[in-house]
């Protein structure tokens, strides 16, 4: 049996969910068969590296659609965590 994340189930349950059509997809959504395709993996990895997935999770957690205010709130929330993350030499 393949596990599906609660986030995915929540989004699935509501079609495009509360996020609206502009909301980014969740990387974990690709966690099933789609991941056999290298391009999907690459895109998902890039979305994780560039925080698009983190923003999608934020929207899902807060149950809000993407907007300037939502993104500003996401930036505020992630600022401290990002600032404490070292970049390697």
């Amino acid at each position, binding site marked *: 049996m393949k596990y599906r994340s609660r986030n995915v189930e929540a989004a699935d349950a509501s079609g495009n969910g509360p996020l609206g059509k502009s909301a980014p997809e969740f990387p974990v959504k690709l966690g099933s068969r789609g991941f056999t395709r290298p391009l999907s993996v690459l895109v998902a*990895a890039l979305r994780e590296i560039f925080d698009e997935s983190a923003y999608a999770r934020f929207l899902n957690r807060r149950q809000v659609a993407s907007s300037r205010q939502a993104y500003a709130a996401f930036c505020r929330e992630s600022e401290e965590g990002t600032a404490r993350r070292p970049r390697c030499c």
Partner: protein
Amino acid sequence: MPKAFRIAIWLGVAVLGALALGTVALHRGEQINAMWLVVAAVCTYSLGYRFYSKFIATKVLMLDAQRATPAERLEDGRDFVPTHKWVVFGHHFAAIAGPGPLVGPVLAAQFGYLPGTLWILTGAVFGGCVQDFVILLFSVRRDGKSLTEMAREEVGRLGGLVAYVAVISIIVILLGVCALVVVNALKASPWGTFTIAMTIPIALLMGVYLRRLRPGKVLETSTLGFVLVMLAIWGGQWASQTPAVARWFTLGAPALAILIIVYGFAASALPVWLLLAPRDYLSTFVKLGTIALLALGIVALRPTLHMPPLTRFIDGSGPVFAGNVFPFAFITIACGAISGFHSLISSGTTPKLIRRETEARMVGYGAMMAESLVAIMAMIAACVLQPGIYFAINSPAGIVGQAPEAAATAISAWGFPITAAEMHALAQSVGEQTLYNRTGGAPAFAVGMAHIFSHSLGGQALMAIWYHFAIMFEALFILTVLDAGTRVGRFMVQDALGHVWKPLGRTSWYPSILATSALIVGAWGYFLWQGVKDPLGGINSLWPLFGIANQLLATVALCVATTIIVKMGKARYAAVTLLPLIWLVAVTFTASWHKIFDPNPRIGFLSHAGQLASVPGSNIRLIFNDRLDAVVTGTLIVMVGLILIESLVEWARVLSGRKQARVRESPFVTSRFATEEQG
């Protein structure tokens, strides 16, 4: 697949790897193709991953697919998120890939391509990959705890303190030396300085676009930023050829150093997130793209290595940095072989994303292999240059002189012929006034990369564009490391000072922010200034100091790992971390001894200070700097000696039964991913 077929495939990989390594190691007197290095590396990594990492995973760490990871147990959609292994792999690789694997191999190429290449391969397979893998797994089993926390809990209070001091030290020295690399790459280069200056308005524009126009569309914004940066590189050519503009962007090393110090302080103390976050994204975008492009360029061009396998400088008389091949090659190349800094990443964000324990092998061991391959590519980029060009770029004025003819004569006398006219033509072709004395590794790497790119894409006409693309890539990359590192250092100091007086620990209290930012920037700024004023170019003393600090942090990480393995009742397998630990102790302690006490003034800090002191009218500051470097090196060694002793005592107590072996792992919870097929 039938077992016999699999055995045949792996035997084939082993034979091919042996053939490639034999070619790399045994060819003398004729040039070899760079693809031999690539084949040797790929075969070595494949065998290391298939057999050695599997042995560690099954026999030593006993990875358990049934055991829930913190990403699953503590899932909060924010910090703890079960993520697909390839996504975590990409995320982890992006975090560990920095300027180190690009600069270190370029500097170590002064010994020839052989010592550095062998160290990158063996160091990664038996040291760096193992360190990253075990620390990642141990952090996963402890709810994503940091290296410092694990050191305190598993080794002792002293271990925690040493890890903390080692981390702060490495951050300070790293930032100082990284800033020096940027200064040396941009000094007297209006084109490069203009391009980097333009990244500030570009990042601000990206910030506005990201926050106002297309919230959250980071990849799209980064692509836009990349296009603008390419335009800035093109505009840099115009700036460098327009005297009125070029005058503004032609800066000496001291002016650039001051600007970078001011930038570092502003990035740490001021609310400039509109600038920093987009710059960070842009830097990552360019970094990943350039690494991929370089790999493609090397495969497409299959260049010939002009550097011999071994040069005369293995005797320690090298112009790039002084010191024998042992131990200095092994501290010069850190990030491509084994880097203590990686243990911070492996015990940072990554363990909170791992979905299944068994995936720690691919992420920890595998991502370090990819990083090591980047180091091999940097080695190739340096060694495709004619050795005379390589040494002309990387030798400081204090060794070869400032006049082009004098430098060319000195380098030719070493057996690497070069003429002033050839160097002038090369400088013209990359749009620079001169390429002499551009120490630090970045310009040599940029010339090598431009050589590879221009021969496989765009021809000689684009040489200058590719050179400045490479310089922009490295400088942008390093400036991101600089502002992120300053903030991380500031938070660490604030955390510590908060134990002394609570308000100092408040990350939102402005007096504390200003004071701790000034402390961290002042510390690395001092090292930067010291490097700028050093007649030997700064890299000669600072890069070994950085290498020693980085490898000492790896020593701390391997002490923690060995202690945990012993406590797990797996002492018979402790050699997997103990052997790299012993090697690193031998390398770092020997290197430190040489850097402090070697009678050769080009190597030993104290003998250099003594030499300066014996000359009337010498600069007192230079003498003080040498003594300071000696004290810093000595302090680091003493600290690591203490954690070694504490670890040895802990192992002895556990193995003799005087202390009950108790690892502080999180309780076992069955994973709901357990039955999922490996994908």
